[in-house]
């Protein structure tokens, strides 16, 4: 293999040292700095959510509810869900990697609305602050789903405050989506046609569609919950003439598409990783791109599959079920295309690629178990059991968190200018994979055997599987703490990465690492399809 493209040096001046001082960060409109602000904030929320999960898993080591009271337990899983969903996973890939990369990948100097981008981060922080305030001053115990009438008339915890926190974070997400859509439409470099768009951008475009069309419905729903709780309006409370099932419709109209906000960006990351580390074009570019849009659009038609036993009409149930099966097909297309991309590639097992493998495998299992849940007759049995818990952790933790970590490793050299230590990274990827499966595989069995979710205490026969799960969670924790440490370490001691340590295609690699404030010295011109690895010189990876 030939030599590296550019000597691995870090440029004198770049976005990180262009300005100094706390103000230069808090008032920045540079999308790259904002991405780092998000990175720090969501890392905090991830560990907060992880701390809640730790308490959940500790409690479930024994059948009796002995570690914490049932009220505390209920708050723990609620706050775990709320934090992980609204303050970690929804913004994870889009707000960190997306923010950093969308403008760079299209050869723009910034997002279309840099100030709105900063506003998004502030909204996120305010929402997170309000939710944290609710958690500190007593917490909330409704489940992350806020089902009525429990949330509006019975719970005596901080429901309104938490809802307001989620609502504000929702607006942050709306503005991020708006910014991406407009940017991708209006700011592309010359020659960057839609067919030349990297798949990362297609998936972020699809994600943004969901963000702008779904999130407002969540917003109004939370407003109605708050109004009902505050003023006893009776919109969802049957004691006052309302219908609790309507709440579920409104909630899932957002929250089902939202699960695709939590997977599509990860799919985009995986498309980049699989091509970069097999040095090959993606198999079936247009199918993978179109599948993203199809998932976003059809994803809006299936929300009722969360309500098969809720009292919805069975005919509506059937419509939602068949549509759920339709939306599974584009996901299948993606999985097959990634696999086929490896065929006759030049595959190297760098850490990001290991995470990509993990993603494909675990997402497949998570997605296929989604088919169990979309099967109405079977969902009657497994609904609200640990089977569902296992399903979504497989997709969200096994899938999206892996994609996030994979992407972080892959673009870390671009963001920081330094390489992470490969050996440690591989080790922690392995730990995450093993710990993950040990944590969540037993939960499929538990669910099928009938263990309901959100249970503080459970019958004794379920203990063995629960102990396995808790053991797995502690392994998983190690796997997540390690990257924290070595990423920080690498900032100082990591090798200089150089502009393009992976020899990747993609405009983001054509500029220095870390990039200058406005990304490019001059606006790049695109003349190639994406992933034209045959046109790239060979490169030896930096260790």
């Amino acid at each position, binding site marked *: 293999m030939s030599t590296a493209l550019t000597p691995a040096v870090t440029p004198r001046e770049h976005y990180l040292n262009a300005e100094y001082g706390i103000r230069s960060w808090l008032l920045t409109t540079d999308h790259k700095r904002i991405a780092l602000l998000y990175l720090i904030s969501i890392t905090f929320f991830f560990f907060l959510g992880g701390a809640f999960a730790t308490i959940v898993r500790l409690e479930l080591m024994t059948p009796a509810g002995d570690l914490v009271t049932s009220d505390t337990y209920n708050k723990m899983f609620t706050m775990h869900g709320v934090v992980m969903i609204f303050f970690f996973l929804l913004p994870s890939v889009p707000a960190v990697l997306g923010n950093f990369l969308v403008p760079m990948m299209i050869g723009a100097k910034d997002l279309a609305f840099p100030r709105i981008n900063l506003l998004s981060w502030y909204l996120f922080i305010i929402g997170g602050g309000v939710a944290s305030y609710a958690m500190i001053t007593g917490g909330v115990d409704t489940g992350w789903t806020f089902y009525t009438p429990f949330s509006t008339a019975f719970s005596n915890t901080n429901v309104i405050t938490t809802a307001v926190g989620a609502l504000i974070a929702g607006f942050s997400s709306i503005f991020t989506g708006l910014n991406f859509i*407009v940017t991708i439409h209006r700011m592309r470099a010359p020659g960057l046609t839609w067919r030349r768009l990297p798949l990362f951008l297609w998936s972020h475009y699809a994600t943004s569609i969901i963000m702008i069309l779904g999130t407002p419905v969540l*917003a*109004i729903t939370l407003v109605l919950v708050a109004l009902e709780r505050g003023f*006893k309006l009776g*919109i969802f409370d049957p004691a006052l003439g309302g219908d609790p099932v309507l709440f579920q419709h409104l909630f899932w109209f957002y929250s089902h598409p939202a699960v695709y906000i939590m997977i599509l960006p990860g799919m985009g990351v995986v498309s980049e990783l699989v091509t970069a580390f097999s040095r090959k074009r993606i198999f079936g570019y247009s199918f993978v791109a179109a599948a993203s849009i199809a998932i976003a659009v059809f994803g809006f038609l299936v929300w009722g599959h969360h309500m098969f036993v809720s009292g919805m009409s069975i005919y509506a149930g059937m419509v939602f079920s068949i549509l759920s099966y339709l939306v599974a097909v584009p996901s299948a297309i993606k999985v097959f295309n990634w696999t086929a991309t490896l065929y006759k590639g030049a595959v190297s097992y760098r850490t990001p690629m290991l995470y990509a493998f993990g993603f494909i495998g675990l997402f497949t299992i998570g997605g296929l178990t989604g088919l169990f849940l979309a099967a109405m007759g079977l969902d009657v049995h497994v609904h609200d059991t640990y089977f569902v818990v296992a399903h979504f952790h497989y997709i969200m933790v096994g899938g999206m968190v892996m994609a996030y970590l994979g992407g972080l490793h892959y673009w870390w050299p671009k963001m920081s200018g330094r390489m992470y230590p490969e050996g440690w990274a591989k080790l922690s990827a392995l730990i995450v994979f093993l710990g993950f499966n040990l944590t969540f595989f037993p939960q499929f069995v538990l669910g099928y055997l009938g263990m309901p979710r959100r249970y503080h205490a459970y019958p004794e026969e379920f203990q063995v599987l629960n102990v396995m799960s808790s053991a797995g969670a502690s392994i998983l924790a190690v796997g997540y703490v390690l990257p924290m440490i070595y990423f920080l370490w690498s900032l100082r001691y990591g090798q200089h990465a150089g502009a393009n340590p992976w020899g990747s295609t993609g405009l983001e690699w054509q500029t220095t690492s870390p990039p200058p404030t406005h990304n490019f010295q001059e606006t790049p011109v695109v003349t190639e399809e994406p992933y034209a690895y045959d046109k790239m010189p060979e490169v030896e990876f930096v260790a």
Partner: protein
Amino acid sequence: MSHSQSTSHPALQVHFENMDQQRETATLGMWVFLITEVMFFGGLFLAYLVYRLQYFPAFAAGSQSLDIKLGAVNTAVLICSSLTMALAVNAAQVGQRKKMVTFLLLTLALGGVFLGIKAVEYHEKYVHHHIPGPAFHFEDVHGGSSSAALNPQNVQLFFSFYFAMTGMHALHMVIGVGLLTWLVIAGWRGRFTPEYHSPVENVGLYWHFVDIIWIYLFPLLYLISRHH
């Protein structure tokens, strides 16, 4: 070649190539924002429709107790304000500063009239105990002549929606009034030119959107079964 191709206008932000790109970007952004607003109100409309189907008589009775004259006048007021807004944008496009400010002021005034009338209506509801809550009380205007006497709870639900929907709309109006005030000041100082008037255009879009919401609210809330 239009002058908005200009690449050196003082209002041009660094990350845009020229004024045209900047303007089109802003307009697209505004439209995308407006469809999020559509979905936001959409949730309310949906909930309203569900209960209107379920409790039709109660909703009809509630609707008939609203003052249709005030509602219709307010509709007309908003339509007029949309016209003046459109004319203000038109003036901005051709660079007639005084005219633009005048039309903006007119729009502002009409918005004020709308909110004033709304306040009168709200006050009326207060006097008649039609505000949902412990003090809620409803007498059917038809004195119970309709076949089924009404469940006051369901009528209260109608008023919950009445307040939620018109309240949310009024909130948007108030924001619009704020934006207009800012436009008037900036416009008077000569911030806007034929090359750069995106703020006027986009506040205009917002204002028309708020008008459209009302165009739906009026028949949905005021016009149920009036022929009874």
